[in-house]
């Protein structure tokens, strides 16, 4: 009797699954299509179009003049000091800012994790720089380093750094300000990601290690770091992708002068200031290729997350 009902139940369920199957698939297509159409029209198609434009010589200043140029734009880019300068600056900026952000972000996350009282308040405080627009962050740091008005040069001079330096007007120093502005705005973001990672490490692990006589440093080195690794990786990749695309900071801080021009900045300037659509597209495509290379690593790292979202429950 019981077995019969169970069989009946199973049969009914299978039948329902089957009849829902085609309905479900149709509904899925319907629900997903608006998003996919937007993404296809405004992301996928333009990327393809950008590749095509990058193979042409086309300037808005001479609308009639258009020719297929093959790889000329790329050859020009690879032969220009402007391009290699931007590559160098972009990677220097990314390396410096992301590693500083990791160290400071980790420090902040550990302090926030240890502070039981006021953790909510600290989280809000830490979100303030994140909420500040990148353009505004650039303006803030600009006013901090402005000669006369700025407080930073005076303070730094007292501890022997950068005597008689116009910070934003000198190569190296301008990059330092740009890195600082980025670290200020995004180290807190890093801290929040790492704090979330710290919170999922069970306390028993630490208690056990304490019982076994592990020192604070040993516990940090042998427990915190390995268990935090997935969160660190995701945070690093997020930040690296962002830093490689940096545009707002150099635009406002220096306009790309004094060794701060980045890939996105020179590509945008070729497009809008010089109206060179073909050459500008080539620079954009090169930026895209570099960023997508890193993004590929990202998708592989968070692949587990995507899989768990894609799983049917």
């Amino acid at each position, binding site marked *: 009797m019981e077995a019969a009902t169970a069989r009946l139940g199973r049969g009914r369920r299978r039948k329902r699954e089957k009849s829902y*199957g085609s*309905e479900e*698939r149709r*509904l899925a297509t319907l*629900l*997903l299509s*608006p*998003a*996919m159409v*937007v993404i296809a*029209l405004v992301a996928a198609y333009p*990327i393809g179009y*950008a590749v095509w*434009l990058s193979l042409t010589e086309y300037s808005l200043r001479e609308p009639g003049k258009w020719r297929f140029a093959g790889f000329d734009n790329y050859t020009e880019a690879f032969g220009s000091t402007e391009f290699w300068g931007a590559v160098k600056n972009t990677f220097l900026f990314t390396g410096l800012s992301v590693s500083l952000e990791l160290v400071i972000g980790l*420090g902040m996350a550990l302090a926030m994790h240890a*502070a039981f009282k006021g953790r*909510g308040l*600290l989280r*809000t*405080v830490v979100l*303030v720089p994140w909420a*500040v*627009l*990148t*353009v*505004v962050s*650039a303006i*803030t740091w*600009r*006013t901090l380093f402005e000669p006369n*008005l700025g*407080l930073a040069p*005076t303070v730094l001079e007292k501890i022997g750094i950068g005597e008689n330096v116009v910070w934003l007007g000198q190569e190296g120093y301008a990059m330092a300000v740009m890195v600082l502005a980025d670290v*200020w705005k995004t180290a807190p973001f890093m801290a*929040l*990601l790492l704090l*979330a*990672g710290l919170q*999922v490490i069970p306390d028993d692990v630490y208690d056990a290690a304490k*019982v*076994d*006589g592990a020192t604070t440093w040993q516990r940090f080195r042998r427990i915190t770091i390995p268990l935090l690794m997935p*969160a660190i990786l995701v945070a690093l990749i*997020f930040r690296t*992708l962002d830093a490689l*695309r940096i545009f*707002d900071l150099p635009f406002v801080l220096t*306009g790309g002068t004094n060794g701060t021009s980045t*890939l996105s900045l020179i*590509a*945008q300037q070729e*497009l809008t200031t010089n109206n060179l659509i073909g050459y500008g597209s080539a620079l954009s495509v090169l*930026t*895209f290729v570099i*960023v997508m290379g890193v993004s590929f690593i990202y*998708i592989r790292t968070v*692949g*587990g997350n995507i*899989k768990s*979202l894609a799983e049917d429950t």
Partner: protein
Amino acid sequence: MEASGGVVTPGTDVRQKEKEREEARALERRGPGRRWIRPLLMWLAVVLICIFCLFPFYWLINVSLKTGSDLSQSDLLPPSPTLDNYDSIFKNGDFTSALRNSVIVTSITTILALIVGSFAAYALARLRFPRKFLLLAVILSISTFPPIAIAAPIFKLWTEIGFYDTYIGLILPYLTFALPLAIYILTSFFKEIPKELEEAALVDGATYFQAFRKVILPLAAPGLVTAGLLTAFFVWNEFLLAQTLTSSPKAFTVPVSVANFTGSQKFEIPLGTISAASVVITIPLVLAVIIFQKRIVAGLTAGAVKG
């Protein structure tokens, strides 16, 4: 532990453990002399974090209250605080129209992203169909696109079809970049809603759409708030595309307006007014952070924790 090697009889092991445990407890009890060090260090760290995070923003407010010769001195408090800079930016028609443009573009994009995004997220979270993993991977990879990559073709297309320097010309690319994040957050929120609730509705004769609207949506409200906030922050903040795709106060958004305050007067930069404008466009975001801290943190960490 494992490195101890050799033959360990159970008895000594237990005794050894007991002794170690005792020592650990003793370590924690160690005299009142050192007990204050940890909390002190902790509070020092907390104070440092607060200064690091808040001081630059305080500085910006400080500069925004300075005018004239005060702007060539690095005082921590404005010697003669004045609201003149604020007065002048609100009399500046370009700035107020940029504020209006940003509010319009941000709200339309956010609403569209939530509607389109929750449709897609419902399908991804609940319905069964092939190649779901691939689809999610494609959607997510869009969020890593550098905006500059689509700037040139969109710039050219928009000039040809008349979208250049218009709201719609900004909303479309913003929607594209906001959707992946919205879909990701909403999918993970939808997945956490027990499937049984919806199945009960389906068994009772509700259609999928009714189940979605009456069961899922109300329960997913926190997820919608999170996704909406992050979308709005992104749009309000976006600069590269806005700078590339607009050319007049008709469509300038706030970052463009403020950044070009700087650019236009190369030799005498009106730092006081720029700072005031910067404060004005940042205040709504800071308020949102104070009110919605929990929701924002939930959204930011949604992708990072599960590892």
